[in-house]
């Protein structure tokens, strides 16, 4: 029995190695591995199309540039220091100063309530959705680019342990201490509309590639399908 378990473990490990080095969906034993292919495919497609970006990069491309591992490491580090975040209530927000790369607006972190199906199998953070909306209502970064968005959040927040009191004060004054959140609510609606719009575009794209269409998957109706986990207000 021990021998069998050892063999099973070894085979599974090998399988995982092959998945990490290949294009996904190669692990025949693990059914959960399904669907990995889609975003890998999207990554490769992006690499194929965005050659200029890669050439612009000074250093060599590492596997870290494509995944979210560095953020996971950051998170592990945070949990080590500050403990588990499961008890943190929903709806927390922070106010951070805008930069050249990050225009004024709001970054929303949302959770899809109906998490049985991953929309398009492309959102790597499913069931969580992150959208960066500018204060003019235009989308700065949509939910299918979590890496870019996390990079922006990191650049906005890393190294700051204390709140920006002057910005918080200004935000509280604007919203009457959170009583009048109309502006943020309208941006939240714009963020959710962008998710729906991106999904519609992606659904139509799925018609032109094999592997199954997504138009009937997990129809998002609107605001009631999401709950707000937290948001960052980016202010000038």
């Amino acid at each position, binding site marked *: 029995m021990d021998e069998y378990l050892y063999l099973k473990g070894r085979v599974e490990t090998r399988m995982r190695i092959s998945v990490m080095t290949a294009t996904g969906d190669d692990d025949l034993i693990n059914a959960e591995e399904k669907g990995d292919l889609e975003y890998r495919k999207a990554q490769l497609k992006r690499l194929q199309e965005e050659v200029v970006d890669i050439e612009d990069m000074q250093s060599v491309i590492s596997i870290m540039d494509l995944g979210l591992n560095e953020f996971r490491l950051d998170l592990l580090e945070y949990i080590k220091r500050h403990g588990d975040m499961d008890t943190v209530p929903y709806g927390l927000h922070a106010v951070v100063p805008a930069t050249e790369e990050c225009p004024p607006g709001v970054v929303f972190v949302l959770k899809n309530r109906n998490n049985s199906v991953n929309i398009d199998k492309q959102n790597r953070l499913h069931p969580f959705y992150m959208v960066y909306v500018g204060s003019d209502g235009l989308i700065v970064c949509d939910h299918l680019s979590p890496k870019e968005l996390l990079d922006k959040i990191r650049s906005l927040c890393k190294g700051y342990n204390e709140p920006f009191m002057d910005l918080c004060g200004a935000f509280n004054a604007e919203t009457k201490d959170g009583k009048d959140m109309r502006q943020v609510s309208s941006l939240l609606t714009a963020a959710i509309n962008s998710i729906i719009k991106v999904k*519609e575009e992606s*659904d*139509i*794209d799925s*018609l*032109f*590639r*094999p*592997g*199954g*269409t997504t*138009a*009937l*998957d997990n129809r998002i109706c609107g605001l009631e399908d999401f709950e707000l986990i937290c948001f960052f207000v980016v202010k000038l």
Partner: protein
Amino acid sequence: MINMNIKDDMLVNRDITSAVINKVSASRRDVEFLSDIDSVLWVASIRPQETQLSSFEDDTRKYEEIQLLEISVHTYENIYKISRTIMKAIPYPIILLVRYNNKYKVMLSKPIKSKRDYDEQVIRSMYQTYWFFPDEPNCSPVTANIIKALDFSNYDCSNIFDLHTSIYNTLLNYQAWFLTQAATLRILRWLGIPRKENVYLTCSPIKYYPPKYKANGYVLERYNNYVIQYDKEDVWYALTHNEYAKNIIDKRRIYNIDSLLFESGEY
């Protein structure tokens, strides 16, 4: 409107005109014929998740889902080319409804995997049905039968491939037969209808370029001279919707196009 008895959870109902035009334009140089398209509607997607059907795959065929599309055109000359191009661009078996004014046509094919690229498909055995007129109050037997063949509740299949093949085979009975322009004029003469009545004004004649065949049977190219042809059902619709012609047909007790062709000696 055609009632296909498709469940609500299979309905997509999205306009994909620009997406189709962009996709086809990216892969072809001669895209003038795309300007004939008014709209492309993605009506429904029949897939295993919403049905009891399983997907099907073997060495040569891959039937994951069936897509039901409806295209509206404002000219009918290029409908075959448009349909074929759309079928090639979308890597799923398609039931394509083509709408021109008040009449419809179904385009069907048996796609197989491309040996060059498994993500693409090769369109084989494509055919078109007769024009049919679903909005007419007293529709002809052919129209009624085509509508019945498009009713999904009539099929009891185990997988997507079976369903598509069943629909393909059922509608094959209504594959369009064409009459030459000369034959349609002979019918008019036989019925004693003067040409000035313009009976065939509502018809959609097509230009048929006879193929030159290779020794092994493949079409090498087509002749430059064309023959004008009329869809048989289209001719019958035109005759029965022209008062002058209808009176004569009723007097002669002719009830369908086949008996008309038989009586007039065109068969």
